[in-house]
């Protein structure tokens, strides 16, 4: 009974052998398994058809007139390195079989062989070529993602400058009118904001590069996060007060020291606290608590802000990702704050999680490894 698999996609096999009896018996055995088989009596013919059909597997005799098996292997792999090649060889040419494997053949089958042996080697070979194709597809997908990421980054960095340049160009083009000075003033303000946006973005981008270079992780010391958080809360008290947002902290006096880097941890908590204020509502709250939790110190930064849609929770740690909505429309940001937090925490061997409810608020939980001697 054959294992016909035509329903999904029928595997294609080429058999290249100058011996007509071999061609016939191979194709009979393999067709019975449900494969589509094409046979060719020499390498030139086989190669001619490979470009159009792209077989999944090739069975090729090593010893053939004109183009030999080794040459066939080389040329097939020039066309598609993922085509699996099985070589058939007489006992006398085991040495060349090894040479064929070196040239890229998957396996070899010494003559004479039984139908079962051929079936088995073909089946294994096809499984392997499936894997090879899968991994190639993954590789290509990854490269494509990387390319579109570069496009995306260059777009983000160019946008502020493009907007400013366009303002200037239009201003130069507009004829003088009573409204023009006012317009000019307004556009200068707007341009200044865009330039600031670009400067922030470059600063954050450089921070990420610095973290990724591993500079921070090299000199880990013991750090008491309590004064860091208290200082930040003091520094942002005024910003919060403008919008009547209450900032509270709850940190036990005997909190364990964490393993880290002072400036790095300051950047981490500063980003989280700034976000908690920025994405809050007027008269809202920001509550910061810290406590020991096993091998970690757990810090929660909770806000009563606009919240994060559930389907966007995975994206917020991605570089340059910003949620676009009515609520976030007028909140400036580089899209790099949380990615920086995540990178710092990863570098320190901790983790960050987020829980959020739309319109009610978000809680960011940071686990930092305790310092060990």
């Amino acid at each position: 009974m054959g294992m016909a698999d035509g329903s999904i996609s029928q595997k294609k096999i080429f058999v290249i052998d100058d011996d007509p009896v071999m061609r016939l018996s191979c194709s009979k055995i393999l067709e019975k398994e449900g494969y589509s088989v094409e046979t060719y009596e020499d390498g030139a013919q086989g190669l001619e058809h490979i470009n159009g059909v792209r077989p999944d597997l090739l069975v090729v005799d090593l010893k053939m007139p004109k183009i030999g098996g080794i040459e066939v292997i080389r040329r097939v792999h020039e066309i598609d390195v993922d085509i699996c090649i099985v070589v058939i060889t007489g006992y006398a040419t085991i040495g060349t079989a090894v040479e064929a494997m070196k040239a890229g053949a998957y396996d070899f089958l010494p003559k004479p062989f039984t139908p079962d042996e051929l079936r088995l080697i073909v089946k294994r070979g096809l499984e392997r070529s499936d894997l090879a194709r899968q991994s190639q597809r993954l590789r290509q997908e990854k490269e494509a993602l990387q390319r579109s990421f570069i496009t995306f980054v260059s777009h983000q960095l160019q946008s502020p400058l493009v907007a400013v340049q366009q303002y200037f160009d239009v201003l130069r083009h507009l004829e003088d009118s009573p409204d023009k000075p006012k317009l000019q003033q307004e556009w200068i303000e707007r341009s200044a904001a865009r330039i600031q946006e670009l400067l922030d973005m470059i600063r954050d981008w450089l921070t990420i590069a610095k973290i990724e270079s591993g500079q921070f992780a090299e000199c880990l010391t013991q750090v008491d996060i309590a004064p860091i958080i208290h200082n930040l809360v003091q520094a942002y008290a005024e910003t919060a007060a403008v919008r009547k947002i209450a900032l509270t902290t709850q940190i036990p006096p005997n909190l364990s020291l964490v393993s880290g880097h002072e400036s790095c941890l300051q950047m981490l908590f500063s980003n989280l606290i700034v976000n908690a204020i920025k994405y809050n509502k007027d008269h809202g709250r920001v509550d910061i608590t810290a406590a020991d939790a096993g091998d970690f110190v757990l810090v929660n930064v909770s806000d009563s802000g606009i919240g994060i849609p559930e389907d966007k929770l995975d994206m917020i740690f991605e570089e340059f990702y910003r949620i676009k909505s009515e609520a976030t429309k007028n909140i400036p940001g580089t899209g790099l704050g949380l990615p920086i937090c995540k990178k710092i925490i990863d570098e320190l061997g901790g983790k960050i999680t987020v829980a959020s409810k739309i319109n009610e608020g978000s809680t960011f939980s940071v686990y930092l490894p305790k310092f060990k001697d």
Partner: protein
Amino acid sequence: MAEKPRILIIDDDEDFRISIRTLLQSHNYDVIEAESGKQGLQKIREERPDLIVLDIMMETIDEGYLLNQIIKFQKDYEEFKRLPILMVSSIQQDPLSRFPKAAGEVEMITPDYYLTKPVDIPKFLELVQKLLNQ
């Protein structure tokens, strides 16, 4: 007397919309705006513009391409199929070569008309005029 030609700007960058709107208004065009592809489609129906200035990269890397595709090929928008669309983007790249394809993404049609941002103003105005006269 003929009505002013109506131009829809679809772009997520508010500053770009402001400068281009001001420019077009000073040349006696009626301007409407949309800040996303979704809003753009809605405005096309409601406001029936004579021309669209369409940004390519908005929320996603190829939102503009997608929109172009929808307007040209989707049955729901058949009546707008011939609406001229001028695409703009800050990515300095041959627009005919298209952006690098993201994983699993389908091939998009190339824009009929394309200008790099910031747009060259005389060239932009000339093209707008030409498309409206078609």
